[in-house]
């Protein structure tokens, strides 16, 4: 193919891509108006079918009385709720509502009563990453794997932690959403939760990769492969050059 055709094809592709992205952006901005609805209306429209109009639960979904703000905020901010249908597996999606709407919905759910844990405020400043890492390997790594990629359970799975914000991580530890058990003050005190959340935030979600290129965090096999091919290959070439006779 002649050079100038390839160049023009590339240009056309570029224009199409930019056009598509603009369309997507404008489509997203058009979704916003629903934020103007009041939380009670949204609750009745999206949640009450399964959880009941006053949060007492139905045969399709559990009660929301006493779940606490932490649980409601976790489920809504991770996009796990609302579900399209009660049989749909609960997994992380793009949140269905804006942050303000989620906060209003969480407050609305709290009006059903029963108390429950408040949204935690993890303090990452001054947290001990070393202790956090030890706690992570003791309490979390069995299910979420030591690198936080998640793992398979029995007919269930532990999700990856890469998308979990500090508040969401602290909420999950506190309330134990879904399959996950709750880690109360006997298992982890507040300081330990802070250390743990800091470890997840700084060492799992944003590792500093002091060794240079992380190779997309593919893990030891990829690193070994690169060391084998580039490292050993380079050494072989050098050995050949040293032993060369003129």
């Amino acid at each position: 193919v002649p050079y100038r055709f390839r160049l023009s094809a590339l240009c056309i592709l570029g224009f199409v891509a930019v056009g598509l992205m603009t369309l997507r952006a404008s489509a997203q901005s058009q979704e916003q108006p629903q934020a103007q609805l009041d939380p009670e209306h949204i609750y009745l429209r999206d949640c009450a079918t399964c959880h009941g109009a006053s949060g007492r639960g139905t045969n399709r979904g559990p009660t929301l009385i006493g779940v606490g703000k932490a649980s409601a905020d976790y489920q809504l901010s991770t996009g796990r709720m609302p579900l399209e249908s009660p049989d749909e597996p609960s997994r992380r999606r793009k949140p269905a509502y804006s942050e303000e709407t989620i906060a209003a919905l969480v407050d609305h759910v709290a009006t059903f009563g029963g108390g429950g844990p408040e949204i935690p405020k993890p303090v990452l400043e001054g947290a001990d990453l070393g202790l956090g890492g030890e706690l992570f390997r003791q309490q979390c790594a069995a299910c979420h794997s030591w690198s936080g990629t998640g793992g398979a359970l029995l007919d269930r799975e532990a999700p990856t932690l890469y998308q979990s914000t500090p508040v969401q991580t602290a909420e999950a530890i506190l309330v134990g959403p879904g399959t996950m058990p709750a880690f109360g003050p006997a298992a982890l005190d507040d300081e330990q939760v802070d250390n743990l959340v800091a470890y997840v935030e700084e060492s799992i979600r944003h590792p500093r990769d002091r060794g240079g290129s992380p190779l997309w965090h593919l893990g030891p096999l990829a690193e070994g492969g690169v060391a084998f091919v580039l490292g050993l290959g380079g050494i072989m070439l050098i050995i050949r050059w040293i032993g060369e006779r003129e």
Partner: protein
Amino acid sequence: VSRQGTEAAQPDAIVAAERRAERRAALAFLACAAAAGALAVVYWRGGNPRVEGILLGLALGGLGVGFVTMGQRLLPQGPVEQERHELSATEVEEDELEEEFERAASVGRRRLLMSALAAAVAGLGAAILFPIRSLGPKEGGTLSRTPWRPGMRLVTDDGRPVTVAAVPANGIVTVFPEGHAGSADGQAVLVRVDPGVLAPKKGREDWSPQGLLAYSKVCTHAGCPVGLYQAETHQLLCPCHQSAFDILDEAKPVFGPAARPLPQLPLSVDAEGVLRAQGDFSEPIGPAWWNRR
């Protein structure tokens, strides 16, 4: 420039080639000096592991390239032969060797020596028989007992007593007998379920106050820590071989290679709300062993 070429060429061509090699080696050594100097400066100015690594690599690499160039181009090239002396033995040496052999053949006729050797072998054999007794079957009950005693408090791995209030619904805590935090035999998983879903079997009715259940954390298959708890399905999972235990049904195995249920720790709650054990586990913990009944 090939070897044959330089040999056939005029001496001043060789001299020119050697001068080029000398310049190349000198350049490599100077590069080493420059990189080493830069390394010292970078370290002095606060350091940067990546830059320091690259500079150290350049310095050592320059030194190496210089040495190899020196060795290949400026030092005499082989191959060089050295004559060896004659390797065959003289007639006198052969006779001496023969004499030695004949002397060794007479050792078998020395009776004192032979019987002493037999005594040594017999004694050693008898001594080996005694440690065999140590392999015997009596483990003295150490395998079937753990540190748990009636009334002992449940503590976390850092020794804090576990209260009922500190374990939320669907909660999980790894617990140890007080005074034995970190004990491998005594470790147990404490979980809290809705008391409404509990239907304890006969003899275990008062083992799970307020929905709190404790089971040995040592898998009955291969002894791994059974630390994964699926709160929704009330199952404890072993990460090693995926054995699953139903904690609502005496932790009987429902999946995987484990054949025995996890031993249960009978619990009670004292006046201060602290959890205590009613006694040791319901059966010996961990995998089976030779005389486990």
